[in-house]
């Protein structure tokens, strides 16, 4: 029995081993800050790069990252056309604080609530912050967990490359 499971699992892996870069999972429900339910394929940016950042109101490094990018976001957008999508994993304890938190901090990102953490699971996020870079074709080309002051500059280098259609190394 165990052997059968193992061999099937191997077959399963084999079938998909040839896969390309993963794309943003579709069909996953997210909430907007005004209470609407939307589906994850709304995360788009007309062929330009997207940064998806998983965060929570209580996570200090996440807040540092989003505050640091805020200072330079307009410049990044002008230069590369990038859009930052901030996905909050706050649960019922703090989900109602997300909109006040976003506005109070003056963030102009596209923000979604992932209260049931379906999107977090589908994207294999373990800890926050966890940041993904998505290219113009919707493929996830780079990801990183953790934020340290100044890492946003490393991220900008990558966004520049992606916006020019260049390959980036993980």
């Amino acid at each position, binding site marked *: 029995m165990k052997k059968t499971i193992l061999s*099937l699992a191997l077959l399963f892996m084999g079938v998909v081993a040839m896969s390309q870069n993963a794309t943003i999972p579709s069909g996953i429900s997210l909430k907007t800050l005004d209470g609407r339910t939307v589906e994850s394929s709304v995360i788009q940016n007309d062929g330009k790069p997207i940064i998806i950042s998983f965060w*929570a109101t209580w996570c200090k490094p996440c807040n540092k990252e989003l505050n640091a990018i805020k200072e330079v976001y307009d410049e990044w957008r002008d230069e590369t056309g990038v859009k930052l999508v901030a996905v909050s994993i706050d*649960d019922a304890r703090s989900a109602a604080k997300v909109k006040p938190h976003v506005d*109070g901090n003056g963030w102009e990102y596209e923000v979604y609530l992932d209260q049931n953490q379906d999107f977090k699971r589908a994207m294999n996020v373990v800890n926050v912050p966890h940041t993904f870079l998505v290219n113009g074709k919707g493929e996830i080309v780079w990801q990183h967990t953790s934020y340290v002051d100044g890492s946003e500059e490393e991220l900008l280098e990558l966004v520049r490359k992606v916006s020019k259609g260049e390959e980036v190394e993980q």
Partner: protein
Amino acid sequence: MKKHILLLLALCVAVSTAMGQGIMGGHVTGNFQIDAQTSREDSVIGSKSLPEIMHLNARGDILYTNGNFSAGLRYEAYLNPMEGFRPEYEGQGIANYFASYKTKDFAITAGHFYEQFGNGLTLRAYEDRYLGIDNAIRGFNVMYRPFRGITLKGLIGQQRYFWDQRGLVRGIDGEVSVNELLASLAEAKTRLTLGASFVSKYEATSGINVDSYLDGFKLNLPANVGAAAVRMDLSHGGFGLQAEYARKGDDPCDLNNYIYHKGEAIWVSASYSQKGLSANLQAKRIENMCFRSVRSEKYPEAMYINYIPAITKQHTYAFLSMYPYQTQTDGEMGLQADVIYKIKKETLLGGKYGTDLHLNASVITGLDMQPVALSGLDTAMTGAPGSSGYSSDFFKAGDLYYADASLEVARKLSSKVKLAATYGYVVYNPVVEGHTGDIHHNHVVVADLTWKLNRKNVLRFEGEWMGSDSKYDGEDKRSGDWIMGLVEYNFTSKWFFCVSDQYAYNDGVGNYYNLSVGYTTGATRIQFGYGKQREGIICIGGVCRTVPASNGFTFSLTTSF
């Protein structure tokens, strides 16, 4: 065995779907996590030496996605379970597997799933891997959107109990987005979403014998118990109002001492926000809302169908989160307020770069539970099994459980130096952990300074002080006055080194020194540590995670692909 057959089925479906679509592609993604610790005896912090020397929790999630189809499985191993995890976890195996098909308007999942209705007052199946909570439901979960703006959900299944499945849960949920449903309101500034849910559990009553307060009588327990809730989410520009109200039928269980008493929960959140200023006020009242698949369950985290959030702020500084508040599902009421204000840059108070203020305050109390007259007896008391337990005035507060107030001021001092200073006051009643004793009053001061030496080298210093009126009496090792220092060095986003020490200098015991080194590349992170650590949320090396108590070496690896 049944488990394995289901798994095989899921895999077959996965493989055949991949082939059936003529696409050998699809994507495999996943994540692995290994946490290990050794432990030495230390009577001061209360750790024991382990006969097996090492404790290890590990898991791997593999997810296969192909268009609208996805399937996944999770292998878990607890060899042996880490500190803070129940011994029932010991062992290894496939703990979670599912197959699902999802489109914009329809989704179905067979196998394990997580789900939440509204804010979770009636149902929330969720997982917190660091706290050893996993009440995933195994069964079927369906979502359908018949029209734009209407979402319907239905589910049935059993809940995970360590390596077993127990209980039976059935639920439906509906949500209407008024602005999407009515085309004339599509662009309205006022947005309204309404929702309702109903959840029912079934537990066979044969074999459960509970004595009534009346001598010689056994309780006639309800096999089916239902809970229903209605909710709304209203916003108008910067104003927002969210509320949920739930009721639950008589549900005698171990936690409420087998009383026949309706459950009731109300939660309201009001907020106002504009750029640079926001305020949020939340209120809740919970009465007898423990809703579990197995009524006799004694573990406080297991078999919960619903979720009653603590509305208090989730603090992450060590001393502010030393006494975290835990929801009392049998009854509590509370208020929480949060204000965020940004003082503009280039002003007298704001300085060159601006200043952030974050204010929070909360107070949580018990209910005012009054004794009830017992039928058949010439007496009145609270909580007698088989009675209605107690009566309580809706607006009357009982004992103080918890209160806190904190102010954080964060400011960039120069282009390289950032300082966040926090003062917090925490009042804590040990009764929420089931202990007796006096209420503690703690003052906490935190200074958190980040110094970016240059683009690649970043230093962080954290100093904390806690002054408490609690004294160590041989029980609670958090008592007394504490001081803490932490230095963290980050070399790019890849390496970090961190040294910290928490020391009880007055009326307490303990010296928690800790050294950790971490390496992060992409979504892979490896961390070694040595020292003594309390359980709680720790944010070092640029990530936040909950850690178990430990004394000795720790190792942690997480990776996503």
